């Protein structure tokens, strides 16, 4: 009697392998179709998500720009405030000077003897055309 078990085993192995291959191919085909369907379903949402991402990027950029402008304005305000403090200090000093001058002015005599006249170069009174004097002269 011829031993046919190896052949049968080979046939069974071959059939099983073929069946597995067919099943795998079927499953692969079904999986591919499913993936295509899912991708088709997700395509609009993906576009929306992309647009939302772009908008978010623009908003972020604008926010960065606003932050930069705020920083610049804050720096300018700080500089102005510092300058204002300086002005206030100088104004206070000026007020003190004005007060001092006012006090000095009030202490000045109303009549101040005039200094020597620089144009007077003659040693005696120059010749005159007339004399202004008290009325009632003889």
């Amino acid at each position, binding site marked *: 009697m011829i031993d046919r078990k190896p052949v049968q085993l080979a046939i069974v192995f071959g059939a099983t392998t073929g069946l597995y291959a067919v099943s795998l191919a079927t499953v692969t085909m079904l999986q591919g179709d499913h993936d295509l369907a899912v991708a088709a379903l997700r395509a609009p949402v993906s576009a929306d998500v992309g647009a939302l991402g772009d908008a978010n990027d623009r908003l972020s950029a604008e926010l960065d720009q606003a932050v930069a402008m705020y920083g610049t304005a804050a720096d300018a305000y700080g500089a102005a405030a510092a300058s204002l403090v300086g002005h206030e200090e100088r104004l206070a000093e000026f007020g003190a000077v004005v007060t001092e001058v006012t006090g000095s002015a009030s202490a000045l005599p109303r009549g101040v003897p005039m200094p020597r006249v620089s144009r007077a170069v003659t040693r005696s009174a120059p010749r005159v055309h007339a004399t202004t*004097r008290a009325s009632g002269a003889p």
Partner: protein
Amino acid sequence: MTSPLPVTAERVPTSTQMAPDADPVRRFEGRALASPLSLQVHGGTHEAAEAAWDAVCDEFTAVDAGLSRHRDDSELTAINRLAGSGQALVVGRRLYTAIAATDRARRLTDGRFDARVLEDLERLGDHGAPLGTLDGRAAGIMTRRDPSTRTVALDRPHDLGGIGKGLALRWAAARAAQALDPHVGFLLEAGGDVVVRGRPSDDPSWSIAIEDPRLDRSPVAVVAVDHGAICTSSVARRRWWTDDGLTAHHIIDPRTGQPGGDGLLAVTVAADDPAWAEVWSKALFLEGRRGIAGAARARGLAAWWVESDGQLSMTPGGRMRTIWTREADEPA
């Protein structure tokens, strides 16, 4: 050389002097308004100079007839006698202008200059023509003027001595200028007040001395005047003893009715017009030693003043015109 021209009915010119023909300066002298009157004409013809002197004498005669408080027959005495009664008189052009000028001067000097001090002068012993008893005087009477009819009613008697002399110089100078060629310079002096036009023939400008009001009467300063007038209010001459044994002078402070100008002997002011130079010299005098500098500088006046101790002071405007001072000439 005696002038044939009577300056006033009571005051005849003492002389008229003219330099030799080689000298272009012609001088005329007389008296008016109780003071010396003189005219210098530099250049031009003798006939024109004579005509100018005639015009000057005529003008001063008219002013004396209208504005003198010492004349019994003057227009001023007539309206002074009616002062306070409300009665009005038609007056001449000169007196009307003088009354209007005193009103304006009183406003512009904040009341320092006020011609309504005649009663104070009379009370202190400086008498003019008698005014009589003012029976009809009533309280609340205001000075009224109507320019269309030249009608005037005074509230109180006026003394137009100072401003009257200034106005006489203004009007006489205008008439002299009409009689002379425009290029001819002349100097007109009345009682120590001077008005000049044009240029002198011997100098670039007119040199006017300011008299020291103390005893020696020598110049305390010399100033240059190119055009206009220079007038002095001084107590050097018109001083007297009152019945109370006090000394008085003729510059009355209208706020007190008493002689004013404490600490001052004389004030000189240069201005375009002699009447206003008179007004400001008197108003500044009444500021006294303590107030004169501020008042004169606030008004921008060219002013000089001599204090009781002989100290000469001046405003910046006065300093610009000063060419000599005795103080600078004295050894340090």
